[in-house]
């Protein structure tokens, strides 16, 4: 029986590229794709070949209360979860004095809290068999980013929670990976650096390739580390 991967943020950017890339892995037979936009999720589905069993879950991860039911639905549909890719992200870069409370709450809810709740629920489904969790942080989480206060600090939280969970779950057979991409040509990057020429920087497909390698069974030593994924130009 093939593996089942759950991917958040699958409607665009790194999430979509990861869904497409993982669909090419012979040992992955099913994918649950989560994102807010049903329309854009359907576009991701169209880019994936017919051999992969894909279910789309249009869902706003800001709704934390509904996440347990969301994961139960996925488990009911596929029977198990072997890989969880937490890729969904939110950014609203502002100076401190222009940062609203709503901005902070939404950023942390999607980037941190939803990730923790999803992991908790997914781990219930992963118990008693080898599985992998991959969390996408950011280089913004490890050095200062003036003007990106909420986003950068939330990504620092992702680095921290991933490190903790890697240790906490070490005995369970569940490996936790963290990658921190540098600037990557995504819609989110467009928000963070609106003047940048996205054609000159790292592409989502390059990050997806790294994710696919980390999720492969042959990889067993890079969990628990914050892996910087930055294209040298």
């Amino acid at each position, binding site marked *: 029986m093939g593996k089942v991967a759950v991917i958040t943020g699958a409607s665009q950017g790194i999430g979509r590229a990861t869904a497409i890339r993982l669909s090419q892995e012979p040992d992955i037979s099913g994918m649950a794709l989560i994102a807010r936009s049903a329309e854009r999720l359907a576009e991701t589905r169209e880019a994936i070949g017919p051999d992969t069993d894909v279910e789309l879950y249009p869902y706003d991860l800001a709704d934390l209360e509904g996440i347990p039911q969301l994961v139960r639905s996925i488990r009911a549909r596929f029977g198990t979860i072997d890989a969880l890719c937490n890729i969904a992200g939110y950014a609203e870069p502002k100076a401190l004095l222009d940062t609203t409370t709503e901005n902070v709450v939404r950023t942390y809810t999607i980037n941190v809290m939803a990730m923790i709740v999803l992991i908790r629920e997914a781990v219930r489904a992963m118990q008693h068999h080898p599985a992998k969790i991959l969390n996408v942080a950011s280089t913004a989480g490890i050095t200062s*980013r003036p003007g990106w206060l909420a986003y950068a600090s939330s990504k620092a939280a992702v680095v921290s929670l991933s490190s903790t969970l890697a240790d906490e779950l070490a005995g369970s057979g569940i490996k936790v990976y963290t990658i921190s991409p540098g600037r990557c040509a995504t819609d989110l990057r467009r928000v963070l650096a609106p003047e940048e020429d996205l054609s000159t920087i790292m592409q989502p497909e390059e990050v997806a390739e790294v994710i696919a390698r980390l999720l492969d069974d042959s990889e067993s030593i890079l969990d628990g580390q914050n892996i910087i994924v930055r294209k040298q130009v």
Partner: protein
Amino acid sequence: MKIGMIVLAGGIGKRLGRPVPKQFLLLGGNPLIVHVLEKVLALTEIEEIVITCPASHLDETRSLIANHGFGEERFRCIEGGVTRQESVYRGLEALEGFDSVVIHEAVRPLVTAEEFRALLDAPDPNAMFGIPIPFTVLKGHEYVEDLLERGELVNVQLPQKFDARQLRGAHDAARRAGATFTEDASLFHRYADAPVRILRGSDRNLKITVPTDLIIAEAIYADLVGRRVDQPVRD
């Protein structure tokens, strides 16, 4: 003497397609326009600062003014014009009764308080900043058409200041003639019978026009505030 100021923060229509109007882009974590207004704050002889911006961004600009504590009694937002020239004209209308007007633009965030001070203290009623042109400039399009003597040229910078009555007159004359200018020293020189003093500017006072300018500005700003320059702030 009543001194007012116009801060140009974007016209209307020309920014279609840009994800974020340039005046709101972040430099060192703060919007470009905030860098400008922070320097103006201490210039107490400037009684009123009129910020011209697109109607679609009036609320956002007013929020910035409130959030950053600039005070609505001195800093007033009005709708700009379709062109830069029209925005200045509207700013002049808003400053009716003022004797002198300082003009600056939101996309020159690295202007210093000392430059504003030098401009205000200059004895000439009309003055601008300018720097030498360090490269060769030729006339031409597909082929070289003529030479220019760079020693006779100056790279025009802002801020600038003008006798308000004379500048209004020059703008009225330009409007009657249907003439368009990219900045006010040129317009003033053409239509006002009065000299414009050139003060020595700084190559740090760059205008954020293309994306590369923002990268350079970040490096200059990091140097100014003593931040580590090896830090990949744009990664």
